[in-house]
């Protein structure tokens, strides 16, 4: 019963955060909304028996990414709001379609037999399982993730660097 209550409140927090992001009058408000969203998701992860991932969520997402956003927003001083939208009709069409999409997905979910196995009796060492899998079956994706970071680094160096005066 406690589980349901906890799920409900964290879910609401996540949704509130999300709505806050899109309604925020300027970028910094949105960033904060994002922070709330990420943290509530982190909490949900813990409930879903994925402590390690929750930890990473807090550190990487809530921490690094949101901080970086705020950092760049502050750097470029673009914290002011937006002007009036010239083409409102697309805005409403977009929202309507999105809602339609959600309805479709919910309809799918309700119709399908969603996975509902109970937790295994003996508590597993989550981190050990992940570690083992990471370096056996999922070794290649790990390397690929490495390459991804490499791209990130190259991109930053290439784009943000001032033209070499040399």
């Amino acid at each position, binding site marked *: 019963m406690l589980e349901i209550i906890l799920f409900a409140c964290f879910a609401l927090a996540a949704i509130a955060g999300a709505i806050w992001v899109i309604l925020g009058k300027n970028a910094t408000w949105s960033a904060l909304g994002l922070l709330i969203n990420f943290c509530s998701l982190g909490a949900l992860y813990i409930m879903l028996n994925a402590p390690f991932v929750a930890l990473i969520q807090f550190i990487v997402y809530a921490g690094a990414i949101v901080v970086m956003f705020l950092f760049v927003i502050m750097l470029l001083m673009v914290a002011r709001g937006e002007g009036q939208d010239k083409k409102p009709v697309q805005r409403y069409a977009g929202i309507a379609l999105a809602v339609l999409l959600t309805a*479709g*997905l919910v*309809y*799918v*979910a309700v*119709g*399908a037999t*969603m*996975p509902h196995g109970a937790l295994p009796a003996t508590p597993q060492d989550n981190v050990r399982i992940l570690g083992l899998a990471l370096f*056996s*079956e*999922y*070794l*290649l*994706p790990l390397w*690929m*993730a490495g*390459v*991804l970071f*490499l*791209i*990130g680094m*190259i*991109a930053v*160096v*290439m*784009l943000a660097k001032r*033209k070499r005066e040399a």
Partner: protein
Amino acid sequence: MAIDLQVLAPEAIILAFVLITLFIYALGSKRSTTLMGWLALAGVVLAGAASLYYWGDTAPTFQGMVAADGYGLFANLVFLLAAGLAILMGLEAVRRFDLPAEVFVLVLIATLGMMLLGSAVNLVAVFLALEILSIALYVLTASERDEWRSLEAGMKYFILGGFASAFLLFGIAMIYGATGTFSLAEIGAKGGSLWALRDAPLLAAGLVFLLIGFAFKVALVPFQMWTPDVYEGAPSLVTAFMSAGAKAAGFVALIRILETAFPYWRAEWGWVLAVIAVLTMSWGNMAALGQRSVKRMLAYSSIAHAGYIVIGLAVAARTGYASVLFYLICYTLMNVGAFAVVMAMGRKGEPNEDLDDYTGLIRRKPGLALAMALFMLALAGIPLTAGFLAKLYVFSAAVVEGYAWLAAVAIVNAVISAYYYLRVAARMFFGEARAEAAPVHVSAPLGFVVALTSLATVFLGVYPAPLLEFIQAAIRPLVGF
């Protein structure tokens, strides 16, 4: 579980050369850029050799993530061809458009992404490979950093790419939810028992979202709106690489997924893909009619060609997939050649992409004009060029599988396309060259690219038998007969 690197030999080579070129760049000496270019080219060639070397009927997989089967290795050759040509163009572009030297590294990384995408048999590997490819391309698109067009294109591609890959990921999640596994083979086995889409809504929704992600990547209607802006904004080198390599990777992966994971639903999806094919062809061709800029016209034409390729996909079956592979190779040659010419016309800060810049080119630069005319005719599907045989193969596949109407619509589209391709040829041959038109300069590597692609286009148009034999062998591991 021994890690046998032999399965990933080509990818490993490319990665090695990525690091080597990076190291050279780090040394930061003045003439290191050309050295980096040649090194990158060496890497590509070596990877190609490795792919050919390991080519055989066996299909070893690397921890069930990636399979080095005939199909995957053949796909590598297509990507490496596109990459090699792009790097050659890059050698010129770096000097002419003052692109950063990192371009070579990023092209190699993108090729790595494509090769992995081509051979991935696990959805996690597919998603990661796709992301490597996409992010590398976002950066490449924005590589001409002191040109607003390039940055804007990069930004747009980034936003929409992210948006689409979110859909793709959601699809993977749903498939995971429905089948409990990421491996394509197992999904195929699990899904086999379900007959109609209605019995497995989650799996079906998963496939839909997967299709959306790939349709975006390959630029099918209605997910293709990004292509014209991004292709026009990005430097010609990157556009050529993207339009050939990325599109090929998208199709190769989509074929593998549909064939191994969702073979049972082919009938239901055949019809949808056919409709998408018609929409894509018609949108691409008709929108290209009114274009003033040659580069943007080529962008729309690449959408149209994606439409033709989807016919092969919609038709499925052995001939369909073989025709897709053949079309991809011919398309790579024609398109990269055309973009090479577009690049040769431009100069730093002065792209010269408008139709008027091509007036009377035959008198200013006969070689270039003849090559461009050849590419235009090939793209239009005029016989004795690779374009014609590619279309012929796809249409015959359509006719065999009872989609004759689709072939008819496609051929009518080809006629519409002939009009705007012809307009470029006409402008080059019939107009009087304007006096103050900029002198066109073609350096050695660019000249080589144009020459190689035009010769290959004609050769494949006249004598395609050996390549066809090779393709039909490559298809066997995938289709099983």
